Every structure is written in structure tokens, then in C-alpha cells.
């Protein structure tokens, strides 16, 4: 694929010296842009197109040959009229409102605390916290699933001995059991982004603060937290996008938790429409709605943050 870049050598020798061979940029960009268009941009428009189609039944009483016809926004209004689909949105929003702050707070606290520990331990602990990021979501869910199911789980065993009867997979709890899995997977990853930002801060700043008599608490509150704000914004945006797409965890947990329905999250709902109910057009509409909501939320958050930042200055 990258070989398409090669034949630029001869032309470049002609355009050497002061004349910068800037047209060559397109040869470098080409392969990526071609695949980007093919695998990301075109599918989006194809999905929008599909979402405006429907199967029409012709003939008396709709028993004739089915054909594909134009539906306009019918699929969209159909999707939005489905109470369970809209409920799914409410569910992931609630999920995100709780899970994202909890996860980022944990990530921030761990990053700040690691700053206080000796180098050797910090490295080891950082790697430990980051480890779950390398474990696929579905495998993480299988693992936590075993830790949630009474009978196999040592956690319910221990809690049972202490007199608790936790029902991790019950109707009211399963959403938060999923939240726990997501926090477990991504807290360390987000922590690492914050740690990276902390490291990029000039050390003299900390020195200055220390000389001015600021303790570890004051340094953290007044210097470090404001400085890692860009990292927090970045991680929040990624977390919002991730939350809206919640799919693999509930799908795998469905096996052991009857409370998880086929339209527990918007993504699950679209998936089951496409593959269980064979309604591709409705599924396409739901995917589009999901993408629009996710992008609107992340853009909304970004503009909120930047506006606030501007007004602070």
C-alpha cells in the first residue's frame, strides 16, 4: 500500500533546492486518506442513506414481493418512538454521569499520589494500575462476571461470611456492576495521561511553590490540578464517547444477568435490530442517532470548557 509513495523520486530531483516539493505531500497523505474515506467517511454516508430506506410490501394485503423504498425520516421517528431505545439513552447517560467522574477522580487521585512516592514504587504501581487497559473488554467482563456470580465468586463468598448478601447482577445493581468493569479497565489508562501531563510541567514550578511554603496538598490543589486540566478535558471527551458506545460489557454480562435486555444500551439495540430482527434500515438509523448524540455531547463539553476558560481569563 505504501509503495504508491515511491515514484516521487524523479520529480523531486527536478524540484530540488529552494522550490519546496510541497505537492509531494499528497503522495504521503494519499494512502491514509484513501483508506480513511473508504473505511470511515463513506460508511457514515452509506449508513445515512440506508437509514432512509425501508422494506415495502406490495400487492394485496402486503403479501406480494417486498421491495426497498424511500422512507425519509420514518426510521428515525420509529426509533425515537421506541420507548426502550430512548430508555437505553437515559441509561447510558446516567451511567456516564456517575461512572466518568468516579473514574477520572480515581485516576486523578492516583496520579497525584504517585507523585509523592519514590521512583521505584511509582513505576511498579503505575504499571499495575495500567495493566487492565491491555485486557480486552469482553475478557474483563468474563472475569468480573465470574466474580459477580454467587457460587464461583470469592467476593460473594467473603461478603456472605460477613453477613452481606450482595446481588451484583440484580435489576438495580447490574448497571453499576458494569460501571465497575469500565472503571477497572480505564482508570489506569486515564491516570497515565494525567501523569504524562504532570511530567511535562517544568520542575521549577514545584520548586517555587515549595520555597513559597506550599505543602503537598496546596501544591496539588493550586498547581497540579489546574495544570492537568487539558489532560482531564481530553480524557473526559474520550470517556463520553466510550460511554455512549457501551456494548460489549452488557452483551457478555447478559448471559448471567437477566436484567440486561436486548435494548439495554442504544448500541445493543441497534445490533439486535440488525442481526436478530433483520431490520438493517432501522439499525442504521439508530447508529446514526447514536453517533450524532455522542459527537454532540463531546463537542458540547468541549465548547463548554473552552468558553469557561475564556471567560476566566
Amino acid at each position: 500500500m505504501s509503495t504508491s509513495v515511491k515514484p516521487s523520486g524523479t520529480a523531486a530531483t527536478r524540484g530540488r533546492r529552494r522550490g519546496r516539493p510541497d505537492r509531494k505531500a499528497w503522495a504521503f497523505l494519499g494512502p491514509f486518506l484513501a483508506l480513511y474515506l473508504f473505511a470511515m467517511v463513506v460508511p457514515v454516508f452509506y449508513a445515512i442513506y440506508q437509514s432512509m430506506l425501508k422494506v415495502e410490501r406490495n400487492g394485496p394485503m402486503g403479501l406480494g414481493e417486498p421491495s426497498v423504498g424511500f422512507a425519509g425520516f420514518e426510521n428515525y421517528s420509529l426509533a425515537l418512538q421506541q420507548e426502550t431505545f430512548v430508555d437505553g439513552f437515559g441509561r447510558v447517560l446516567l451511567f456516564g454521569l456517575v461512572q466518568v467522574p468516579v473514574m477520572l477522580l480515581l485516576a486523578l487521585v492516583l496520579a497525584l499520589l504517585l507523585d509523592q512516592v519514590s521512583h521505584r514504587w511509582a513505576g511498579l504501581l503505575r504499571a499495575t494500575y495500567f495493566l487492565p487497559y491491555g485486557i480486552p473488554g469482553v475478557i474483563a467482563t468474563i472475569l468480573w462476571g465470574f466474580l459477580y456470580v454467587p457460587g464461583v465468586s470469592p467476593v460473594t463468598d467473603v461478603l456472605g461470611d460477613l453477613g452481606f448478601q450482595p446481588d451484583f447482577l440484580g435489576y438495580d445493581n447490574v448497571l453499576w456492576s458494569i460501571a465497575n468493569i469500565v472503571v477497572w479497565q480505564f482508570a489506569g489508562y486515564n491516570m497515565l495521561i494525567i501523569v504524562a501531563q504532570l511530567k511535562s510541567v517544568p520542575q521549577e514550578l514545584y520548586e517555587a511553590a515549595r520555597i513559597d511554603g506550599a505543602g503537598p496538598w496546596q501544591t496539588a490543589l493550586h498547581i497540579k490540578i489546574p495544570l492537568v486540566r487539558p489532560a482531564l478535558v481530553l480524557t473526559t471527551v474520550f470517556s463520553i464517547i466510550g460511554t455512549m458506545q457501551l456494548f460489549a460489557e452488557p452483551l457478555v454480562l447478559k448471559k448471567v444477568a437477566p436484567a440486561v435486555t436486548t435494548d439495554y444500551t442504544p448500541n445493543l439495540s441497534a445490533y439486535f435490530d440488525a442481526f436478530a430482527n433483520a431490520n438493517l434500515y432501522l439499525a442504521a438509523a439508530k447508529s446514526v442517532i447514536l453517533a450524532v448524540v455522542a459527537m454532540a455531547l463531546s463537542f458540547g463539553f468541549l465548547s463548554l470548557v473552552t468558553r469557561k476558560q475564556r471567560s476566566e481569563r
Partner: protein
Amino acid sequence: MSATSTRTTTGSEAAAQPPAAPAPRRRKAPRPGRIVLVAVLTVAALYFLLPVYWLVVAATKSNDSLYGSFGLWFDDPRLWDNLSRVFSYDGHVYLRWALNSLLYAGVGAVLATLLSAAAGYALAKYRFAGREAVFKFVLAGVLLPSTALALPLYLMFSKLELTNTYWGVLIPSAVSPFGVYLCRIYAEAAVPDTVLEAARVDGAGEARIFFSLVLRIMTPALVTVFLFQFVHIWNNYFLPLVMLSDDRKYPITLGLVTWQQAADRVPELTQYTIGGAFVSVIPLAVAMLVLQRFWQTGLTEGSVKE
């Protein structure tokens, strides 16, 4: 800073000391604060390690003792026996899945890295009309939810008869807008214009400059992009789920879920699921620990510009 002052003392003390042991006290930090600090960090470590530790223990158990013995301690360990069954079950299908996962993640990440490097370099080092527009257009892809995209991709690929082929998973995996973003930032900072000019004066072609000079300078960023994309593809579930129907083309994630879901019909599959998870998690866990340094370099690049 505090890190350096404590470092020398911990270094001289026993290396095997657990983190819970009283850390060398500094004059500044009050003692209760230190204890809370160590306690919080230890509890967090236990939390992150719990499922992995459980997995290690469970992988050594028979199907019966999985249910009949305490989950956090060993009971009649038989790891090799378990693992050989995992591998031989159903005509060595697990081995097939593992190779598929390596193929998807390895090839996909290499392609994505090369494409991102070329695109990022072009956006950083050439001046041409539409450059910023292209960059914004690519950045929009970063915010596009990837699983919301999987279904549209499936719809389109099924028209092109690319579903249920290796290409169906590989092509979308080779595209990483975030990789382009990282590469652009890195190339802007790390590739000096003077070096490029000198190479041009020496008569080197643009392609040669890129392959023999620029790629070398950009190596740290490339390692990061490769690692991120590798993990992203390795962990991806939705895309192979919608694309593939033949279980011989499955990656590990998809395969293990089919085992897990079939476990009420074939009870020994519970143990195979655990064994299979064990085999897939351990190498990655080791890689995460060893390659930790690289993750961080890349993340710094990523957030510096913010």
C-alpha cells in the same frame, strides 16, 4: 523533589519490601498522611490485580473445584493439563484464534502506523493548500464513535462482499486518525527542517527522505502509535463480531465469548474459557509492564498540544 530524596533510601533498603511497609519518612510529610498514602495506593493495587489474580488461580483448577473451592486459593493445581485441553479442543481452534488475533492486531497496527506516519509527516512538514482543512477532517474521525461505525461498515462491506473475510477486519483496523494526530505533533517538534533541506540539496528524493530519515527520527512516536493501535485492535469486539461469521476467522475475544455463551450446554467450556483468557491475558500483561515507558512518551506528545 521528594521523589529523588526518598529514592536513595529505598534503594539501600531491602528491594523485596512490600509497598505497605513503612516507607522512609521525610521530614516534611506528616506521618498520618504517609500512612493514608500508602494504604490508598495498596488498596488500589489490590483492586486492579484482583481479577487477574483470580484468573491465575482459576486457570489451575478443575471444573469441579472451580465451584467447590475458595476462589482466591489454589486447589489441586493442574495448569498444564488444563491448558493442553484448551489448545486441543475442537481441532485446535483456540490456536487458530490466537494466530488470527496476532494477525489482525499485528498487520493492522503496522499498516496503521505507516499510514499515520506518512500522513502526519506530510501535515507537519509540507505547506500546501487545504492542509488545515485536511487536518480538521481527520480530527473529526477521532471523535467519531468507533462502534457506532461498525454497523455502517458492515452494511457497506456486505455489499462489497468483504464481510466474513480477513479484509473485513483488517481494512478498518489500518485507519487511525488519532495516530495521524500524534504523528503530526511529533513530526512538527522532532523533525528539523534543516535536515530535510540538507537531504534535498544532496539530491535525495522525497520518498527516500521519508523512509530512511524521517521514519527513524519519528521512531518513539511510531512505537506509541503501534502499541495503541495494537491494543485497540486486539481489544476490539464489535467489529469482528459484525464482520465475521466463520469461527475459524475469529480473534480470541470473539472465540472466548462463544465458549462462554455455550457453557451451559458443554460444561467443560467454563474451564476452557478461563484457560483461554489466562493464555491471552498473561503475555499482554507482561508486555504492558515491559513497554510502560513507551506508553508514557506517546501520551505526553498527545496532551502537550492541548
